[in-house]
């Protein structure tokens, strides 16, 4: 009996070792360990044994069963793993093929610049003010110290609609309207982005429609040094910390004293090139202390309040920042242009 068990065990283990498929292994399990299997048969024959031998034999049967079961289990793991590996091998793909494209659009580069500037100034306590693009002569000119006979009106030839209305030539009328709303009560802290229009033939550097951002702060004790500090923050943020800044006295009818800000030329590093016309400097900004006439016309007491205002051309910033060489690109909307601005830049 013991020999028979040894034999069965060897036989079974031999078959387990030879099995190459899970089904085969299962058949072995059923054949040897099943109720109708030879080992069960051996167990049944135990009745003939003495009471002393029976437990010994019983123990031996269990050892054999366990041994076979263990081997089957081990083999099963091996076979299962092999099956999984075979399946995975078939599932292999070419990971270098491109992924499914996700549709993705983005801001226009001008909006990109505007939002960057808006966010900078919002962080400094400004709100964003907007106003109509068709303006009255009053808000566009007269409220800004540009009476009808003023020679500086030549500087900005305009698209008139009627004698008294026109396409605004700058976003300054928004400042005039905002000041008026404040009814002589400070503080005012706004920036005004928007489209403006001038009578220019469209070419590489001129556009009859373009964008400006202007800023205005009115409070007690606002000074030129505050303007200087604010514009330095702005220029460093927009053009980079390594840019140098130069202030030049200038003239605008609505500010006095007035200032123009140049940044050092990025292209030649200040040595002089065609972009900076050999000067090493590029003009990016104009501003100044709000002219007392402008304050008074808007109902502010120029003895109590002072303010500063500044303005920038959005296209000009974008052109300098991204190296765009023709202003018309911004309005042609060639997708090969638009798609170049669809990522983050540090």
């Amino acid at each position: 009996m013991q020999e028979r068990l040894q034999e069965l065990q060897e036989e079974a283990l031999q078959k387990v070792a030879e099995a190459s498929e899970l089904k085969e292994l299962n058949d072995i399990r059923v054949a040897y360990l099943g109720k109708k299997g030879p080992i069960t048969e051996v167990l049944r024959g135990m009745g003939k044994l003495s009471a002393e031998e029976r437990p010994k034999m019983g123990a031996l049967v269990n050892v054999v069963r366990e041994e076979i079961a263990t081997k089957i289990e081990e083999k099963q793991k091996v076979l299962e793993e092999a099956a999984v590996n075979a399946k995975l091998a078939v599932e292999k793909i070419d990971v270098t093929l491109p992924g499914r494209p996700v549709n993705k659009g983005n801001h226009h580069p001008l909006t990109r610049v505007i939002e960057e500037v808006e966010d900078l100034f919002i962080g400094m306590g400004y709100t964003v003010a907007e106003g109509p693009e068709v303006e009255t002569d009053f808000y566009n000119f007269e409220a800004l110290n540009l009476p009808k006979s003023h020679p500086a009106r030549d500087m900005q030839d305009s698209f008139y609609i009627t004698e008294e209305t026109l396409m605004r030539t700058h976003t300054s009328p928004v400042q005039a309207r905002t000041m008026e709303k404040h009814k002589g009560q400070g503080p005012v802290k706004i920036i005004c982005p928007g489209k403006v229009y001038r009578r220019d033939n469209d070419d590489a550097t001129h556009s009859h429609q373009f964008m400006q951002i202007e800023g205005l702060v009115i409070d007690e004790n606002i000074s030129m040094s505050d303007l200087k500090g604010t514009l330095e923050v702005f220029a460093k943020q927009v053009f980079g910390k390594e840019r140098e800044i130069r202030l030049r006295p200038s003239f605008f009818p609505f500010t006095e004293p007035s200032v123009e800000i140049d940044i050092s030329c990025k292209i030649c590093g200040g040595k002089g090139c065609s972009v900076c016309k050999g000067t090493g400097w590029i003009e990016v900004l104009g501003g100044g202390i709000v002219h007392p006439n402008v304050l008074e016309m808007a109902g502010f007491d120029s003895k109590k309040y002072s303010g500063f205002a500044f303005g920038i051309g959005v296209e000009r910033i974008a052109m300098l920042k991204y190296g765009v060489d023709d202003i018309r690109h911004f309005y042609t909307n060639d997708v090969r242009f638009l798609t170049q601005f669809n990522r983050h830049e540090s």
Partner: protein
Amino acid sequence: MFVSYKWLQDYVDLSGMTATTLSDKITKSGIEVEGVEKKSEGLKGVVIGHVLEREQHPNADKLNKCLVDVGGESPVQIICGAPNVDKGQKVAVATVGAVLPGNFKIKKAKLRGEESNGMICSLQELGIESRLIAKDYATGIFVFPNDVEVGQDALEALGLDDEVLELGLTPNRSDCLSMLGVAYEVGAILGREVKWPEINKVESAEKATDFIQVKVEASEDNPLYVAKVIKNVKIAPSPLWMQTRLMAAGIRPHNNVVDITNYILLEYGQPLHAFDYDRLGSKELVIRKAHAAEKITTLDDGERDLSSDHLVITNGSEPVAIAGVMGGANSEVQDDTTTVIIEAAYFAGTVVRKASKDHALRSESSARFEKGVDPNRVREAGERAAQLISQYAGGTVLEGSVEVDTLTIEPAVISITLEKINKLLGTSMTVSEVESIFTRLQFGVSVDNETFTVTVPTRRGDITIEADLVEEAARMYGYDNIPTTLPTGTVTPGHLTDYQQKRRKARRTLEGAGLYQAITYSLTSKNKAAQYALDARESVALAMPMSEERSQLRLSIIPQLLEVVKYNNARQLDSLALYEIGSVFLKQDGEQLPEEREHVAGAITGLWELNQWQGEKKPVDFYVAKGVLEALFDTLGLTEQIDYRQSEKEGMHPGRTADVLLNGDVIGFVGQVHPTVQKELDLKETYVFELSFKAMAEAAVEPIQYSAIPRFPSITRDIALVVDTTTVAGDIQKIIAEAGGKLLKEVSVFDLYEGERMEPGKKSLAYSLKYFDPERTLTDEDVTKAHEKVLAAVKEKAGAELRG
């Protein structure tokens, strides 16, 4: 204004300065130097030569063989093609080894068999612009006056050893439209004196008043008129130094008299005019407004129609000059002129501006009058011109001048405190610093207890109020020296308005959906302005457009976006998704300004899904465009308030267009561009939308309120309904949603079938209905009860049958 560096030294000491260092200082003090031109740039080896012999080239009709003394050991042979070269002339010779502009090197050459050792130069060849060259030398070589020295550097003789500063003058600084004005500015910057020209008055015994009478009938426009008379003038070229200075300043030399008036204009900033006394046709000058229908032929030979807006100088009967703008041809100084009248006058800026604008005549003279000349220089400028004419045109100045003077000159006197200056600039200047600035500017100044009383010279007409003085102080103190601070006043919260935030969110949603932002022009053609308009209103037109294409303000954005699609399509860019947020302009009756309404519009065409190697491609269709809008409404919290309604619209596909309604009001539309329009514009299938963004942004939106996550399972039932083909899915959906009661949480359509297996005129729509109760687990009976109500409702209201 072009300023010759050499000439400027007549009025202010520039020692220790170079043109470049001076330019930097001027720019930093407020007048931008836009460029410094070195006149001799690229020029070398040009000397004055004397043409000893000239004969025709033996082998060429148009060439001359010249023997020229260039100051060397022996004269050289030069072949010259200029028609005006001749024996005895003093000329500019580029000798062998010389370099001319454009890096043109002069070498020994043989021209048609004859040796040539250099080149006789025209002024153009020396880099002078043609428009500045006197008529006599416009097409040939330049001939020097006889007194120049042979062998001398010709560039020096021509004043080309000079640098010219180009000042970009702002409208307030017209005082620097003169050399003296610039000298005052430079004097203030450097702290140096200004030297005025010396006038040696030599007059004959004859009196000017015996020759001419002056009557001013418009004294408001002409408060001061001074006439000087000079006899026995001999018209000839002006001295070379004067010609070169004029050319450096950008003015073409004519003859001695005209050149002198221009020279004074540049020196004093006072425009002058010279009349030929004998051609005047009378012995009086009457200054008055022109009569209607009066005409004058100006010096440029243009016939000008005058009106009562224009101020004219007349001889008592007819105009001889448009005041301050241009003289008449009838009284022009010519080669045979012997007696001249020099006019030095003060004309009001407005009347000169009007005439200059009406006749499109911008002259050096009108530019100065328009901006205001210094009333205190009028007389002296006339005096100096007369003296120069006697000196350089051999004339005799008659005693005195003929004047009409109603001008009152009151220099501005302004007081300002030190505190005010420092407070506005953020500086801490001292009394003596500020006082020294005003002194350097040669303003009259007195100080009393930190208050300055400043008397402003009449040359600085731009300075009238306190702020003007603050500016002078700031620019002379130096902007670089102003401290850098940030405003410290009231703290204000910075933020975007609700509307502005919605606009940013709308942008991000559209971009996230794959659309690129475009920005197009607001101005368009009359035809395009009204296409696709949401409101059938008249467009706003420009009074004087630059072109028809940009003559009206747009009422819609779609036509502009279709232009963009067309542009890109023409460049093989077929798959496009673009949007724009911008204003349209609607005329309003009885209002001065149009209504400006912000719209959002989009255009999508080509492939929407493009999987290159998988080979799957999905072209854009109506539901792509609608899906984009649904995402947008979702972001703005408007989904529940939006409806779509089949619509027919001009320019749109009649079967594939929907109006978009917000709480029952049409706010825009979405659909396919009409195939005829697509064909016209050469577009492929293109879908567009345009909505009033204003309406969307102004619609009330519920605040976000958390609702509990369901704890109980839901039950989903699908139904397929047979309906008439004319029935629309949205209606059925609404019926289901209403009938399903509060247990029905979601309804969605998941299949549409129209085909052979349907009865004619019928189609099948399949919906998925999701029921659940937040309080408990639903039973089958609960759902069946609700579901039966749904089925009954669709049958009753839409004749829908369950599909078997």
